[in-house]
C-alpha cells in the first residue's frame, strides 16, 4: 500500500467513526428530548386530571353544604318558626303565662337567628352573591354570639379582588380556622384582620390560645383541619402560613400576591 492510500484510508475511517459517533449522539439527544416531552405530557395530563378531580370534589362538597343549608332553613327553621307561633298562640290563650314564656321566646328567637346565619354561611350561593367580606361578617357575628372568646374583626372596606372560587375557598378556610379556635385553642381573644392593596390581599387569623407544635400536629392523623386549610389555600392559589408554638397561640396568614409582584 502506498503512503497516500494509507493516509486516505486512515482519514476516511477516522471520519466514518466520527460521523457514526455524531449520529449516535444525535440519536441520544433526540430520544432524550422525546422522552422528556412524553414525561412532561404525562405530568400535564396528571395535573389536568387532579385539577378536574379537585373541581368535582369541591363542587360535590359545596353542593352538599348548600343542600344541608337548605334543609336547615326549610325544615328546622320552619319547625322553630312553628314552635314560635305555637308559643304566641299559647300566650294569647293564657295571658297569665306571658312572663313564663319570655325565656323560651328569647331562646327560640336566638335559635332562629343562629340557624339563619349558619344556613347562610353554609350556602355558597350566598357567598357568591354577597361577597367574601359580607360572608365573613355574618360568620363573625354568629361566632361572637356564642361568647366563647372575644372576636376582634378588622377589615376597613376591603375589596379582595378574588374570583368566586377563591372567595369560597378562603371563606371555608376562615370557617375551619374559627372552628379550630372554638374547639381546641382555649383562646380568650381571636383577631381577624384583612388587608388589600394594589391587587394584593392578605387575611390574618390570630388567637392567644394554648398553641401547638405545627410540625408534630401536621404529622399526626388528627390534623385534618389544618391540612384542609393548606390544601384549600393551594387550590385557591394563595400563600398560606401557619405559625404556632405551645403557649404562644396560633396565627394563620393567607396571602394572594398580584401578578406583577410574582414576576422576578
Amino acid at each position, binding site marked *: 500500500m502506498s503512503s497516500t492510500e*494509507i493516509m486516505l484510508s486512515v482519514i476516511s475511517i477516522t471520519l466514518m*467513526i466520527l460521523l457514526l*459517533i455524531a449520529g449516535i449522539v444525535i440519536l441520544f439527544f433526540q430520544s432524550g*428530548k422525546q422522552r422528556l416531552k412524553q414525561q412532561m405530557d404525562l405530568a400535564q395530563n396528571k395535573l389536568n386530571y387532579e385539577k378536574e378531580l379537585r373541581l368535582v370534589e369541591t363542587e360535590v362538597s359545596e353542593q352538599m353544604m348548600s343542600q344541608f343549608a337548605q334543609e336547615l332553613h326549610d325544615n328546622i327553621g320552619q319547625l322553630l318558626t312553628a314552635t314560635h307561633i305555637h308559643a304566641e298562640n299559647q300566650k294569647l290563650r293564657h295571658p297569665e303565662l306571658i312572663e313564663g314564656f319570655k325565656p323560651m321566646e328569647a331562646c327560640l328567637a336566638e335559635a332562629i337567628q343562629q340557624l339563619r346565619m349558619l344556613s347562610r354561611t353554609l350556602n355558597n350561593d350566598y357567598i357568591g352573591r354577597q361577597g367574601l367580606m359580607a360572608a365573613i361578617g355574618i360568620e363573625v357575628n354568629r361566632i361572637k354570639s356564642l361568647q366563647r372568646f372575644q372576636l376582634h374583626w378588622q377589615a376597613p372596606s376591603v375589596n379582595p379582588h378574588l374570583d368566586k372560587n377563591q372567595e369560597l375557598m378562603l371563606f371555608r378556610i376562615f370557617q375551619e380556622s374559627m372552628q379550630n379556635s372554638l374547639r381546641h385553642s382555649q383562646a380568650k381573644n381571636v383577631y381577624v384582620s384583612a388587608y388589600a392593596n394594589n391587587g394584593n390581599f392578605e387575611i390574618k387569623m390570630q388567637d392567644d390560645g394554648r398553641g401547638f407544635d405545627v410540625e408534630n400536629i401536621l404529622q399526626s392523623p388528627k390534623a385534618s383541619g389544618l391540612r384542609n386549610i393548606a390544601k384549600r389555600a393551594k387550590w385557591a392559589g394563595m400563600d398560606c402560613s401557619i405559625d404556632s408554638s405551645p403557649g404562644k397561640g396560633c396565627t394563620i396568614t393567607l396571602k394572594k400576591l398580584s401578578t406583577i409582584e410574582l414576576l422576578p
Partner: protein
Amino acid sequence: MWIIVNDLAGLLIAFIAGLYALPYIKLYYKLFFYLIVVFIIIYILTYVVLLFPNQKSNQWVFNLYMPIETGFLMRAAYQYFKLDKRKSLIIVGYFVFMAVFLSDIIVRGPGIFANHGYITESILLVALYLFVLNFEFNKEFISWKRSPDIWIALGIVAYFGGAAPYLSLMHYLNTNHHTLNYYLYNLVTVGLANLRYILLAVGFWLIRRNAIAKTISTQ
C-alpha cells in the same frame, strides 16, 4: 516551538480553565484536571527521554501513560455513575483493558506502543462516555448547552473514537512510513486532542459559570 504550541494549545487552555474552576469542582471533574497535570508531565517526559543517547523511541512513555489515563477516565465515570447499581461493570472493564494491555506488553515488549491495549481502551471509553451522554440527555430541567458533562464526554468520545484507527497503526507507520506517521499524528491525534481539551475547557468554564450563578441566586 510551533510543534509544542500546536500539541499543547488545547491542553493549556483546559489547564487554565481547570485552574479557574478548581474551587468549584467536585471529585468527578477534579479527576479530569489531575489527568491534564499528569499528561503535561508525561508530555515533557516524551521529549526528555529522547535526549538520552541510547533512547531511540519514546513509545514506552505512551505505554506508561495508557493505564493511568484509562484509570483516571474510568474512575471519573465510576464517580459519575456512583448511584447506579451497574457501576461495578466499570471495574470489570478496567480489568479487561489491563489484561489486553499487559498481554500486548508481554508479547511485543514495553518499547512498542501497545495498540491492542489502546483499541480496547478506546472502545471501553467511547462506550462508557456514550452512556454518560445518554444519561445527560435524559436529565430533566437541564439544558444540554449548560451541562459541562455533555461537553466533556463529547470531547472524550470524539478523541478516543476518532484517534483509534490511526493509533492502532502508529507503530507500523512509525516503522515503515515515518513521514506519513508524523503527518497523520499531527492531523488526527493532535487535532482531536485539541478538540478534546477545548471541550474540556468549555466544561470547566461551565462549571464555574453555573456555580457562580447558583451562588448569586441563593444570596
